[in-house]
């Protein structure tokens, strides 16, 4: 079996954690060729070549692939699809944008957010916000999958796969990039952080969200948020954890002023240790927490920040 893996490339750089976790899943299926695509992707290609389990790297550099617009990226993958049994990517927003398009062009179903690989045709994935796990067996000739990275360990490095360049196919330019609004941050990336501190509606304002951030910084943690905190403008959209946000599984997840709606739990209940701080002792978050503290966050969080 052969696998084409769309590596996660951001502005020419390999997103190592997401890619390495998808490599672990892909390597269970067969021999992995990693594709690094972008306006600049050579450096990412070199980084991907070092991942254990990658046996070949393809680098596609073309202005049309800048910002990984779905149309051009999907056309590239389809042009390479012959000879691969599986086409795989980590379930990032970029890949969720591209992979269903690839699948439809190949007339196959996409299998999103795969959390377990049973065999080459059979996969597990969460449905209903993680309230159920479905095992599906694909009847399609090619399998197009995105991988839920939080359930796979990252592949190590030490490999030295050969790197080849490939050309991007010509196609009509249907979409054009205008701008990115990306906040620069020194904090660890949410989906790969060992510790995540998240705040919810209970935090009450953007200003008070600094309490959450201060605790996170003391712990060297990433900051997360509930949908309610994002909708209320306390936190940016890319901090949202949950069914429709990011899925995280850190060693330690601290939920502060978050009630524990199922849609939020969907994004964090695989964390190793969960701490909940909430003033309502009946908050559902306590049902999944390893350590629960019933307290006013405005007292407990500064105290915790001081004492850790």
């Amino acid at each position: 079996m052969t696998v084409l893996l769309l590596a996660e490339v951001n502005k020419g750089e390999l997103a190592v954690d997401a890619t390495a976790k998808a490599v672990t899943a892909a390597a269970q299926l067969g021999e992995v060729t990693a594709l690094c695509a972008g306006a600049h992707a050579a450096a990412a290609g070199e980084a991907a070549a070092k991942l254990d389990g990658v046996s070949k790297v393809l680098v596609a550099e073309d202005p049309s692939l800048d910002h990984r617009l779905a149309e051009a990226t999907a056309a590239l993958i389809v042009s390479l699809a012959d000879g691969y049994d599986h086409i795989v990517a980590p379930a990032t927003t970029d890949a969720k944008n591209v992979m269903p398009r690839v699948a439809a062009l190949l007339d196959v179903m996409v299998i999103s957010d795969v959390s377990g690989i049973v065999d080459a045709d059979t996969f597990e994935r969460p449905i209903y916000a993680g309230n159920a796990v479905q095992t599906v067996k694909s009847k399609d000739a090619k399998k197009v999958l995105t991988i839920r990275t939080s359930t796979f360990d990252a592949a190590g490095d030490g490999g030295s796969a050969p790197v080849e360049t490939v050309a991007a196919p010509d196609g009509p330019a249907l979409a054009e990039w205008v701008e990115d609004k990306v906040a620069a941050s020194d904090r660890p990336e949410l989906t790969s952080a060992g510790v995540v501190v998240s705040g919810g509606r209970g935090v009450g304002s953007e200003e008070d969200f600094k309490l959450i951030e201060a605790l996170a910084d003391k712990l060297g943690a990433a900051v997360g948020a509930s949908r309610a905190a994002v909708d209320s403008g306390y936190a940016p959209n890319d901090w949202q954890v949950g069914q429709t946000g990011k899925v995280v599984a850190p060693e330690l997840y601290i939920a502060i002023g978050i009630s524990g709606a199922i849609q939020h739990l969907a994004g964090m209940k695989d964390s190793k240790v969960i701490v909940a701080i909430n003033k309502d002792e009946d908050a559902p978050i306590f049902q999944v927490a390893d350590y629960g503290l019933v307290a006013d966050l405005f007292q407990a969080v500064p105290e915790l920040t001081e004492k850790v």
Partner: protein
Amino acid sequence: MKVLVPVKRVIDYNVKVRVKADGSGVDLANVKMSMNPFDEIAVEEAIRLKEKGVATEIVAVSIGVKQATETLRTALAMGADRAILVEASEDVHADIEPLAVAKILKAIVEEEEPGLVICGKQAIDNDMNATGQMLAALLGWSQATFASEVAVEGENAVVTREVDGGLQTIKVKLPAIVTADLRLNEPRYASLPNIMKAKKKPLDAKSPADYGVDVSPRLEVVKTSEPAERKAGVMVGSVDELVAKLKDEAGVL
């Protein structure tokens, strides 16, 4: 410009989902069903485009069981003009896969010739996040997924997207597919008079055969199981106790 909005009937997001004991699926008999929340946002966006004079007509489409008529009536009560029901199954437990849905939608798009299709980003039952992208592929159109802002400017739509790193703005050529994310807008509630009026709005009933689409699934569901249960731990009485537990017991500090 005509706007097409596909709306899916799904289990209400507040309902506690129960996996059937025999592993054959999730129990959907006698549970509250609603319009997929992302599709409410999509309908709302279409209505706002109409209120701005950009959209001229809004057509809501649902593919599924006959009961999806209720979902379409909700869309009509919110402000859609017309609806198409494609009855693709008689079994409330059957889920039509995104690829088949996209194929039916493609045929409808070819008939209706909308300038814009606004889907939800994700159905909260199958959590696939695929249909809009698949439809765009089949039509050879551009796609602007996970939209938090949509502005139609002449031949283009300028769309801000919620992505892992923050926000990305792209410009896509119309006709195009947009998929709605949570923060695109806050959907309105249908007023009682509008609910009454919606009963008189046109609703066409079709079948997949009318569009020459085979809806048989590509993915065979082998089983559906409960996720690994997480047990509640202990309550601590103070911050000091919490810090001690995290250090000594959990070893995570």
